[in-house]
C-alpha cells in the first residue's frame, strides 16, 4: 500500500496520521478511517499530512467531505502540512480559506481547542 493511516488521541482531539501518497487509489483508505471516527462521535479531528508527499483532488475531496460531516455536528477539522507541494493543492483550490492549516500537530491541537 502507498498510504498508511493510523490514529492517536491528543486530549480532546483525534490525530489521524497519513503517511505516503493520497491519490485516487489510496484516498478511500483515508476516507474510511475519517468516516469511522466521525460515526464513532469523534468529531474534533486533526489530519496530519506532514508525512504525505503527494495529494491529489481525490484526497482533497475526502477532507472536504469530512469537514462537512464534522461541521454538521459542531465538530472541527484541521490539517497539518509541511510539504509545499501539498500546501499548493489547498491554496489553488481555495481550500486553505475553509480549513485551518498548521505546520505541526502541536500547533493544530493548541489552536483548534
Amino acid at each position, binding site marked *: 500500500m*502507498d498510504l498508511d493511516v493510523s490514529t492517536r488521541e491528543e486530549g480532546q482531539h483525534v490525530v489521524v496520521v497519513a503517511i505516503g*501518497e493520497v*491519490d*485516487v*487509489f489510496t484516498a478511500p483508505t483515508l476516507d474510511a478511517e475519517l468516516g469511522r471516527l466521525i460515526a464513532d462521535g469523534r468529531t474534533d479531528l486533526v489530519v496530519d499530512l506532514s508525512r504525505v508527499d*503527494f495529494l*491529489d*483532488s*481525490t484526497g*482533497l*475531496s475526502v477532507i472536504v467531505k469530512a469537514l462537512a460531516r464534522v461541521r454538521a455536528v459542531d465538530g472541527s477539522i484541521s490539517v497539518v502540512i509541511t510539504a*509545499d*507541494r501539498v500546501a*499548493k*493543492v489547498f491554496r*489553488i*483550490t481555495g481550500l486553505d480559506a475553509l480549513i485551518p492549516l498548521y505546520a505541526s500537530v502541536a500547533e493544530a491541537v493548541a489552536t483548534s481547542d
Partner: protein
Amino acid sequence: MPAATLSIPPHAEHVRTARLVAVAAARRAGLAEDVIDDVRLAVGEVVARAVLRHAALGIERDVDLVIRDDGHAFMVEVSSEPASPETSIDGDADDGVALALVQALVPEVGVTPGTVALAWPLAVIPA
C-alpha cells in the same frame, strides 16, 4: 520522438505509474523541481479522470500516455476512449476541482475528443 510511451489498464492503482513516468521524463527535460511538482499533479489528475471514466463505463481499453520533449515544450498527451452519446458521463464535483487544478498548473491545455494534451513551454521555465 517521444521521451516515453506508457499504457496502463484503467484501474486506479496504475495512476501512480503514470505520474512516475511523467516525473522521470520531466526531470530529463530539465524542468525545475517546482514545475515537476505541477507535472506530477496535473498528469495524475488527467490520468485519474480518464481511468475513472473507463471504469465507470466498463471500458477495458488502456489509457495511453505519450510524453515528448521537442526542445520547445515538454508535452504529455493522455488518450482514452473518446466521449460519445453512449460514453459521456456527468462529471461530479471532484471533476470540477480536478479540472481547476489542471488549468491552474498547466500553461497550455488542449482537449480534443479522447485526448488531453498538457504542455509546459521550455523557454519560460527557469532551468
